[in-house]
Each structure stands twice: as C-alpha cells, then as structure tokens.
C-alpha cells in the first residue's frame, strides 16, 4: 500500500503470469506501448497451475491489495491441462476468501493469450481501478510484516 502526494490510494497488485501465454501477452502489451499502472508487478511462473494458493495468501499477508492470476485460455494450456487445475483450485481458494470476508474483487483469474496484449493492459487497468475502489487490504495484511 502506498499513498502518494495527492493522497490517491495506490494499491499494490501482484500478478502471476504463466510463461507461455500471459507473460508473453504482457510483453506484447509492452511492445505495443499499451499503458497500465505501475501498481502491477508481475511474477513469472511456468504455468498458472504452478501458483500455490499459499503464494496468494502470502502476498496478502505481506500487504498486497490485489492478486491476479493469468493463464492460457482453457484448452490452450502449454501443458495441456494446467489451467484447468488452476480454475478448480482458485474456485476453492476464492470461496475460502469469501468465507474469511475478503472482498471478492481483490482476487481474480483471467485467461490472456500471448496474442492478447490489449486484453492484458485493459484487464490490468480495470483490475487496478477495482482494487483502488476497495481501498487498502487491512483484513489479511500482517502488520508485523510491514516495512517500517
């Protein structure tokens, strides 16, 4: 969480992107110079199914305000079936987060192909705005982890 001079809340967004589709899609939005906010920080993973729900909880614990997980479109996974596992696991994680009272809009799964640079940028813009509206993540952030 950061607050800049004009006091607009700057959410911290962690994006997990699969190497084959979404990371390439993010690169494409860069190549096409499509803007999205600096709030989004991307972590490269081989496949969306590599993302352990623990990573997402860890990000929230450490002060992330939103986490987005991007993978190949269903049926297009480089590893054949990885994103199907992602879809099921995240459905479970999201229902657990609902149960904990974490706003549903703080987490998202999105399918972005390597050709969808524009979709990647649009998704990141929209997601950042959605998280900005929600305000800081106070419920899951562990204050002991906050940098002094």
């Amino acid at each position, binding site marked *: 969480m950061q607050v800049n001079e004009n006091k607009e809340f700057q959410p911290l967004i962690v994006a997990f992107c699969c190497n084959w589709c979404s990371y390439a899609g993010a690169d494409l939005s860069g*190549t096409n110079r499509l803007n999205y906010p600096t709030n989004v920080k991307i972590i*490269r993973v081989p*496949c969306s199914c*590599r993302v352990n729900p*623990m990573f997402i909880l860890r990000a929230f614990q*450490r*002060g*992330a305000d939103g986490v987005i997980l991007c993978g190949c479109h269903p049926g297009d996974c480089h590893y054949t*079936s990885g994103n199907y596992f992602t879809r099921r696991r995240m459905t479970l994680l999201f229902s657990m987060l609902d149960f904990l009272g974490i706003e549903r809009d703080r987490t998202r799964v999105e399918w972005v192909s390597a050709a969808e640079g524009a979709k990647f*940028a649009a998704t990141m813009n929209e997601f950042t705005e959605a998280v900005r509206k929600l305000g800081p993540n106070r419920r899951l952030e562990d204050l002991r982890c906050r940098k002094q």
Partner: protein
Amino acid sequence: MQRIGVFVCHCGTNIAATVDVKAVAEALGHEPGVVISQDYQYMCSESGQNLVKDAIKEHDLGGVVICSCSPRMHENTFRKAAASAGLNPYLVEIANIREQCSWIHKDIATATEKAIILGKAAIAKVHLNTPLTSMESPVVKRALVIGGGIAGIQTALDIAEAGFDVDIVEKQPTIGGKMAQIDKTFPTLDCAACILTPKMVEASQNEHITIHSFSEVEDVKGFVGNFTVKIRKKARYVDETKCTGCGLCTEKCPMKKVPNEFNMGLDNRSAVYIPFAQAVPKVATIDPNYCMMLKNGKCGVCSKVCSVGAIDYKQQDRIIEEKYGAIVVATGFNPIKLDKYDEFAYNQCPDVVTSLELERLMNAAGPNGGTLLRPSDKTHPHTIVFVQCVGSRCDDSKGKPYCSKICCMYTAKHAMLIREKYPDTEVYVFYIDVRTPGKNFDEFYRRAVEQYNVHYIKGMVGKVTPKSDGKIGVQASDLLSNEQLHIDADMVVLAVAIEPDKTARPLATMLTTQMDTNDFFTEAHPKLRPVESATAGIFLSGACQGPKDIPETVAQGSAAAAKAIGLLCKNSITCNPCTAHSNELMCNGCSSCEKVCPYGAITYIDKEFRMPDRTTAIRRVASVNPAVCQGCGACTVACPSGAMDLSGFSNSQIMAEVDAICK
C-alpha cells in the same frame, strides 16, 4: 549468502527514457549480497556480455541479475554468457524492466521505483537459485507416421529417403486415404490413382518403411526422442504374410450385400474383401460384422478356396510395442455427416449425393464404371445442381465456422468434367463466394465459366424436394438479380464441409498435443512453426491441421518430414532441467501428484529409510522422471505435504519474489 552482480541495461533509450537507470543500479547495489551493480548501454551486445563475464570472474559471483528486456528475448543470451564465464547458466535471473516497465509507463519517478522493485524481486530469487544441469537424452532413430493418406505417405517416403526407418499406422485395410477415392485432381485434371498408386507401391517396397495397415495407435508414452507406442493390429482374419491378394475368396464369398465403403456405399462388396484393385498391402480382410462363418460358424467358403491357407478365423487383435524418436500425425479429414441438413433431402433422395460420392460415380473403377448415372434409376442426368458451402462457413451450431477450402475448386472440376463428357447436361453451381487462391486455380475456374458455360449463381439453395416424377425440385435465390429460382434437377451434388477424423481427438490426448475448437491440431506457431505441434517431437502433416488441397498437403508432408529428420539426425537432445523433484523424506506416497501429472512423469518406488531407532523401514515415495517432466508444476501444488518442488521455480523462490515485491 550468494555474491550477486546486478547489471542494468539502458537498451539505448528504450529503457533509459522512462527509467532512471543509474538510480536503479545505485539502489540495487545496496541490496544484501550484491557486490557489484553496473549499468551499460546495451547489455546484450558483445561488449555488454563481456562486462558480465568479466564481473563474474573478477568478483567471483554466485548469481547474476540482469535488468533488461523480457527473459523471453535474451534469457538464453545471458545464460550462455554466464556459462562461458564458468557460472552455471541457471544462476542468472532477468528482471523485465523494458516490456513490463519502461515501455508501458510514462512517469519516470514511478517507473524507476517499479524497476527497482522488479530488480529486488529478481535478487531475492537468485539468492535461492541452485545450479542445474541439463540432462542428455538419447534419440531413437525411427519415426512413426499416423495415417497412411497422401500426407502420411509423402512424409514416410521423405524420412525413408534420408535413411531412417519409418512405420506407417493406417486404420483402414489399405493406405491411400481419401486421395485414392478421388477421380481427377484440380487444376491439371490428371487422374488421382495414376499419381497416387505409384507412391503407395513405392512406400510398400521401400526397405525403410513398414506399413501397419488395419492398425490403430493404442497408447503413447514417453517424450521427444523416446516415445513408446502401442499399436493395435486389428484382426483381419487373414494371415498377411500368406495372402497373395489373388482375390478368389472375394469372388466366391456368398455374402455379397455389404455396403462398399470405398465407393461411399453406392454399391456392395463381399464380406471378405480387398478395398480396391491397387490396395497396398494387397491383402484380403474379413468383415466380422457380415461374415457368416464368424457370426454363425456356418460357411467357410473362403478358407476352402484359398490355395495358400491364409484364412484364419481364430485370429485375434495383436498389440505390438515399438519405440520411436519422432511422431508425425497425418490423420486427415472426413466429410461431415448431413443428418442435420434436412433441407437438402440427402437422406430421402438417392440422387442427392455428396461430392465424394460423385467422385466415385464418375470414376472408371466406381460403381458405374465411369458413366455418370443417377443412383436411383441408372439414367443419365440432364440437369445437375451443385450446392457449395454445405456446412462450411456456418455461423450456427449445425455446421463448421471455417471455410473447407477445397470445395470451390473440386466443384469447378466436377462441373467442367461433366460438361466435357456430356455437353447436353446443364450444370448450375450455387455459391456464397468462389475462392480460388492458388497456382492456376482462378484460370481453372474461369475456364469452367467461360469455356464450359457452367452456370454460376451467387446465392444459397433454400430447399431441395424430391418429386414424384423422379425430378428434384431445387428452390434457390439469385442474390445478384434478387430473384427466386426453381430448378427441376436430375441430380443435386452437395459440397460438404470437411472435418478432422474422429480418431484425432483421442489421439491428441494420447500425444498431449493441442487442438483448436474444431478438433484440428494446433501448430506450435501459426506462421513460423507451421508443421510442429507445441509438444516436442510431434509433427503435423496434412488436413489434420486444417483444410488443405493435395499440393499443400504434400508440401506440408515433406516439411514435417524435414523437421522429423532434423530431430532424428541428433544423437541426443538436451532436456529442460527445470523439472519437479520430490523430497523423499517428506513424501508420504499419497498419489496426489501422479494424478495431476499430464505427462505420466511420476512413478512410485519403494525406498528404504533408516529410522531413528536404527531399524529400517520401506516406504512408497514419488519419483519424477526428469526426462519426461516438462516442468509445469501442477504436482507441486497438489502435494499435500509439500514434498514436491520445481527446480528453477521453487516454492521458496516464488515466495521470496512475493516478499520482495510486497516489502
């Protein structure tokens, strides 16, 4: 703590224009473990790489972070540079500050701040990187071609030409595929059998080619260079090694009322049959659904007349297992079923035929010996209506959304051949668009219109109704003159959409290759890797990848062969070392990881452990075959005890990145 070197690239002004590169280098220099932090104009250039190499040697670095463009661009460049300086290449990490920072942000202050955070995340990760070594895995110098149509035959011939052994697996009793059924080929009008059958014979006589006809792929295991394939050789109730193909059994067989698949069911064959005269291998096959001996145990005529004793009613399916280095998929296409198209009365009227049926009707070896006669009353048709795009370019769920590509040309061919042979016949073609991109294709189509006076009408046929006088009423609209047309036709020919063979989808699952929504195999790159699948070692040939005419199919068949030969020429291939591994002390053998592994890379072994009380215990633990593992990481998340981890993207590495970003 590793000794880490950080190298920040300006990329000319690509990065430096929006990111304060010197500030990034300065800030990252204060990170724990960083012993040198430098910036340079072009890190990927020769001198930039030398800067990295010299620093590795001079500062005895144990890890390198390059803040530059996307790792998809230059990760390999820097890994090679590190390796040449004596550092394990997998101790290099890239922070992507170009595509994912400088190019998308405009504000220098925030972009610099983000670049520093990305750099910190990479430093946090590289602290936990471990040296990895690539395994070498040997290549079996033998290829498998699945499908024995023209695509498969061409591929097999080209691979055999290079001196490698090739097996063709064909599910029909003979190779040849759809091309064997075609009468003439566009745009040159040469006879399909005359150019195909010599190739079939060449394939059967080539010492490097083994043809498994009447066989199907049952199971595929393994990985590039080392596939193990189970092939089911279906029982044909005839000993292939003894049968001479004399055809006496087919003459004497009393059961003669079996629809002949080769002639599209337009005539009948016997229960023991050879699909067509030039079949390869020329061996008889008994159809167990019709053979009276196999059904009721009464007959046995064929075994009595066979002079070499090739008939074997007790034959069973056999499963053979072979090893291959490369697999080429050439499963081809089929015309779609017309059950959903009642408006064309295909199922009610025998004189409404598909284009492939017309090929057989016009073929000299077909049911009418080459004379074009109506299937219903064997009279000569005087008015023939062709309907284009039946099931192609459909936006509803009935048909296919794509263009089947070959129909415009073969319809022009049919129309031309009919007008040539029977000038008294009126030929109408209803089309949406005529698509003739190809060498000499448009000239061919124009010849049909101008020289042969075929009536091309833009518009779709709305309804086809069989009439009591034997004529077929065709109701259509002419879109250019905006008129409704009623034609009394003698025959209607439907240019039916083509779809991938039904066996393609289960095969794709076995091969772990990708398919599009229409069940066509997906190529690794639509432009630059058109004959490779995304799965290493699997290549695509012919219409299994998309609708294609014969020249294109042959071109792709040869291209796939070239790619397969490139692979087979290697003695060994380097595997990706970023694979999963299981911590045997933590693994409890629950099988969760095995269930999610798409490659079957995980097996279980019984391992002996020394217990604290000095006894030994044997436990079942997971073991990953690094040559099969592709490194997706599905198992790492499925593992309930956290025993499974992925080299290069370990749990602790990703956690460290998350922490660094969130700090």
